[in-house]
């Protein structure tokens, strides 16, 4: 048996996990803690004009949360209080950063273009305005009542036109928005008085994002915008269209710091309780598996270090803060991790009972249980991937930590448990006490 490779794997994962943990501790990197554990910063958004209904504010709440999540702020707590929208941000420490993250509001309007960069007079009596273009220059535009609400929420996407090879933005029209869009398109396509340039400007907070020329008077439910976009330009345009449906302009009214709701006490309680539980579990495992339990203790230490490293790296990189639910989720994952050992060791005992030696039984027992562990863990991984991909809020955070613990379990099982057991078994260390023990009554059960 290739002992050298087993040693490489064993030493490799131990050195790697210790090294990464040491690196994190040396750099003073720890996982970002969630709102309930650490608090954060809260931005209170107020509507600029009066008259926002509860329905409008509800839409704004959902839009703000979507926007925050797509910009990488995970698990913000967004709710409507009175006529304000309160945005609590976890893991954000300074106020300027909080403000810039929450400046997601903005009204998108659609305005027919009179002409661009030609020094046209602005006829204010007709409500015309001169607005800057994002790419430089200015355009004179006519007024219109159409806003970003004509687009279906979150329907915009970036594609490549297969013929021209250019970046294009596709967006769907909402049921109510389609006639509005089409009447504007009709006017522009025919070069009516308010739209002699045949261009329709997409305006965000007074800046023209894009002014595409209308190619057809009638759009059947969806719109394709093409032009000499770079990929980034196409993506930012699609973001604008996606967020476009703010029914009211919101502005940050004030910033507050928020204390933790669960607080340090809860985190301490969870950690202490988790450690006690872990210690009890380990004691039971030691009583039950005796010498083999060395592998469980070692494996769980490596697993814990891997989780800490992954949680730190992921929460720093993506702002997925560790909330109380996440912390307890990790405690629960201890159970599933211990299960990989239990399945393996029960199989080993089974084979030894059939008269095999440990050295003989270990490789085949591992092969059989590795299959079981992979099947069961793949199901957990599917759960975490689907939930992470498709859900929002704390469900997404849960999925992330479920995925991390499952990956750690697989890594430790293959790179630590396997070589550790095979090496211990191959030199006969596990054999003799085991056989003697099998005539004494053992077994701690629940």
């Amino acid at each position: 048996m290739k002992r050298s490779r087993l040693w490489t794997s064993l030493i490799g994962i131990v050195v790697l996990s210790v090294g990464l943990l040491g690196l994190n501790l040396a750099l003073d990197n720890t996982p970002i803690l969630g709102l309930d554990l650490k608090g954060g910063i809260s931005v209170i958004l107020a509507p600029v004009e009066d008259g926002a209904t509860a329905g409008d504010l509800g839409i704004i709440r959902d839009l703000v949360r979507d926007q925050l999540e797509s910009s990488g702020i995970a698990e913000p707590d967004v709710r409507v209080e009175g006529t304000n929208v309160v945005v609590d941000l976890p893991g954000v420490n300074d106020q300027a950063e909080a403000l810039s993250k929450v400046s997601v509001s903005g009204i998108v309007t659609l305005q027919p273009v009179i002409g661009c960069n030609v020094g046209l007079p602005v006829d204010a009596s007709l409500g015309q305005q001169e607005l800057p273009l994002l790419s430089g220059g200015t355009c004179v535009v006519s007024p219109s009542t159409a806003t970003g609400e004509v687009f279906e929420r979150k329907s915009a996407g970036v594609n490549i036109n297969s013929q021209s090879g250019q970046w294009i933005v596709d967006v769907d029209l909402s049921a109510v928005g389609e006639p509005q869009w089409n009447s504007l398109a009709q006017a522009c396509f025919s070069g009516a008085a308010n739209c002699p340039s045949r261009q329709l400007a997409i305006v965000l907070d007074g800046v023209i994002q894009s002014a595409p020329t209308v190619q057809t008077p009638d759009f059947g439910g969806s719109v394709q915008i093409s032009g000499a976009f770079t990929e980034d330009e196409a993506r930012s345009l699609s973001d604008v269209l996606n967020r476009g449906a703010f029914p009211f302009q919101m502005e940050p009214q004030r910033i507050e710091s928020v204390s933790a709701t669960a607080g340090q006490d809860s985190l301490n309680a969870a950690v202490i309780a988790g450690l006690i539980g872990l210690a009890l579990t380990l004691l039971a495992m030691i009583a039950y598996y005796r010498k083999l339990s060395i592998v469980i203790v070692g494996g769980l230490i490596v697993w814990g270090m891997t989780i800490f490293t992954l949680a730190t790296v992921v929460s720093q990189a993506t702002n997925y803060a560790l909330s109380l639910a996440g912390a307890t989720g990790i405690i629960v994952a201890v159970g599933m991790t211990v299960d990989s050992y239990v399945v393996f060791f029960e199989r080993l005992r089974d084979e030894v009972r059939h008269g095999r030696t440990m050295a003989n039984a270990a490789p085949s027992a591992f092969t059989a249980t590795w299959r079981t562990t992979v099947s069961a863990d793949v199901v957990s991984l599917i759960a975490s991937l689907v939930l992470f991909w498709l859900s929002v809020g704390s469900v997404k955070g849960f999925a992330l930590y479920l995925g991390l613990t499952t990956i750690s379990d697989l890594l430790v099982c293959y790179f630590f448990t396997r070589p550790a057991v095979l090496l211990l078994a191959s030199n006969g260390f596990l054999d003799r006490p085991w056989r003697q023990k099998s005539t004494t009554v053992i077994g701690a059960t629940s």
Partner: protein
Amino acid sequence: MSNLAERGLTGAPAVAGQVVRPTAIGRLSEGQTAVDFVGRRRISMWVSIVLLVLTMLSLFTRGLNLGIDFEGGVSWDVPAAAFDENDAITVLSDNGISTEGSRIQRRASESGEFIKVQVETQTDEVTEALRIEFANVAGVAHDEVNVNLVSSSWGSEITEKAVRALVIFMLVVGLFISIRFEWRMALSSIAAMIHDVIIAVGLYSMLQFIVTPATVIAFLTILGYSLYDTIVVFDRIRENETRFAAQKPPYDDVINVSVNQVVMRSLTTSFSSVVPVVSLLVVGAGILGATTLSEFALALLIGMLIGVYSSIFVASPLLAVLKHHDSNWKSRNIPRAVGEPLREMVMGGAMGSRRRRVVAAQAEDTDAPAEPAAAPVDGSTQVSAALSHPPRPRKKRRR
């Protein structure tokens, strides 16, 4: 646990070269149990039906007690100069408002610090009365305490997305299990998973615990745990299917043998998963006083226990029922092995000849009920008894 392996204690003291333990726990730890799980599926079926009916009744009559994250509520902003979180809790409990599920935050801005107290929706009178009381305790004028209605932060959108994600998850997992195992196993394991989550949710409804986002996470954890546990049991069934295929046993035997073989693993695993959660419940919530943890831990504890129960008592019998209609396993009309023949299969990992099995089953039928439990024999007798049987070949080819 001691009654788990009580049946089939009679007969040979040694099977397949191993000594059969005299005590139930001993047999359990050595993988020598011979419980007819499939034959007792009616018991577990009725248990599950009763639980599900209770759950449904409770959900329809009492519903769930949703927290402020789902239903919104009312909040008071009390200046924090002479007022702190504990004062808020005192005022709330003096007025008979449960502080469970409330949210009390200290907030600071340029205009000063204040305590935001948020609870479930109250009547206008209560809201106003509390405003006055908060102001009195804090020593400020009444209008310095701001009252606001608060919307839910967990909008319907989050729920919709989570439900859609769950449906897609079940489809993908169903497909995965169908490919890796077979569709009947996919169906049984997903059914058992839904069974577990429904019962866990029902418990929340029956006990009227407050549902918070953390509770939803606990339910999701239960879901994952249940599926995980079932997969481990099914993997063993799958393995034994191929091992036993040539001997053409009834499928019930495969299930009984497999479940008996993994029962110790299931107990050990649930023990090791439950201990940290119990510790969370007792040490964290009870002694250190972090009440937020208590219900979360309780939901997890119950869910885990149901998860382990369902993979043995729901998913496996369900698989047996589905398999009765599988043409590959149909019409194997010998009776299901119980008692010693079953133990022999569990311990030996192989089936005896069909003829011997039928004879043994008949013998079991005639003498099993009358025979008293065998007295424990001393070690030396057992060893000699073990040697009277031909030893199993050492290196048996697997699969």
